């Protein structure tokens, strides 16, 4: 019994390797670079009419100077840019704490025929940078000044 089993082991290994390879191919081979969590403004605009009124995520940078917040109606508007194209976004409700000018964002919603993106969900996309504030800056307070400064 011992002998027959020790002869079997290479087959067991070969079988395992084959199963692993097939599984990996099935799981990840089908995915390619097109698996994206969000579209850039340029990609969304390139879709033309196919991009209207379908649930989609749009990601990019909050274009500096475009943020408008109305603290009475809780309406937030801004533009998302990828450096090439801009898309106007309209959202309601308070944004996440880290939302500010120049920050990365991903918005969920639909792109209307009026070329305004109606956001039903707003996510902040953080960069891979971590730094203490420069002298004179205070952490976190930029958000407050943004909201106060651009209110009504």
């Amino acid at each position, binding site marked *: 019994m011992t002998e027959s089993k020790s002869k079997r*082991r290479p087959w067991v290994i070969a079988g395992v390797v084959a199963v*692993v390879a097939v599984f990996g191919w099935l799981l990840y081979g089908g995915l390619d670079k097109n698996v994206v*969590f969000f579209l850039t403004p340029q990609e969304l605009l390139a879709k033309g009419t196919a991009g209207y009124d379908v649930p989609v995520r749009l990601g990019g940078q909050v274009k500096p100077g475009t943020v408008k917040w109305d603290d009475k109606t809780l309406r937030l508007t801004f533009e998302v840019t990828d450096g090439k194209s801009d898309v106007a976004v309209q959202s309601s409700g308070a944004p996440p*704490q*880290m939302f500010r000018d120049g*920050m990365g964002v991903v918005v969920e919603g639909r792109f209307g025929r009026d070329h305004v993106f109606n956001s039903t969900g707003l996510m*902040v996309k953080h960069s891979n940078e*971590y730094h203490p*504030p420069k002298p004179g800056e205070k*952490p976190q307070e930029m958000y407050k000044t943004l909201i106060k400064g651009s209110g009504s």
Partner: protein
Amino acid sequence: MVSREPPSSWDPPRQGRWPWFGAFAFLFLVASQTVAIVTSPPDRDMGDLEKILYVHVPAAWIMSLTFAVVMFYSLRYLWKGRETDDLAAASAAEVGTLFNGLTLLLGMLWGKPAWGVWWAWDARLTSTLVLFLIFVGYLSLRAFVDEPERRAQWSAAVGILGAINVPIVYMSVRWWRTLHQVQSSPDTVAGIYVLSLRANAFAFLFVMIYLVRRRYEAACLDRAADHAEQDAALGGR
């Protein structure tokens, strides 16, 4: 064939000075967490939220390392057929699953205030969850299969299968467009944060080594008891 050693030659590993190492590991963890929290200034974007860096990132790193250990012992088991390699792989898988769960949990706690959402089905988060589920499956498999040799072979297969996902999880933020940011490097992280992060990564490493070692000792004792029981049932020696 898995060598079914008689109990006399089966020598379970001794705990030796490992409890002392464990005490050191946990003290080192407490010390490096304290230093990190006390000395690091708030981040300019996320303020004190930045301190989750010191647990989320080490948990993810050590998770990857622990699954690499699973890969190593699983391959060696298939190669040499030694039961102790199977037990070592299983011990590492338990601890790896723990760190994997921690990575997910701490990431969610960070995601809510930083991103505004607890969870997003992007490639990084999804692949990390897949990794977790594979190893939960691995542990369930071990609990369900009673025949030791069969259990060891199947476990080795699933362990290798699972560990293959680790580089995919790591590269997911580069291969696919995700909500999760790409890897930071010392160039993108202020020096004072890097130092604390490294200290905590070592703390997590020591805790991982300690936990894997103790689980391995326990697993060996368990198997030794099984062997003794079998031998007694076969008429004793």
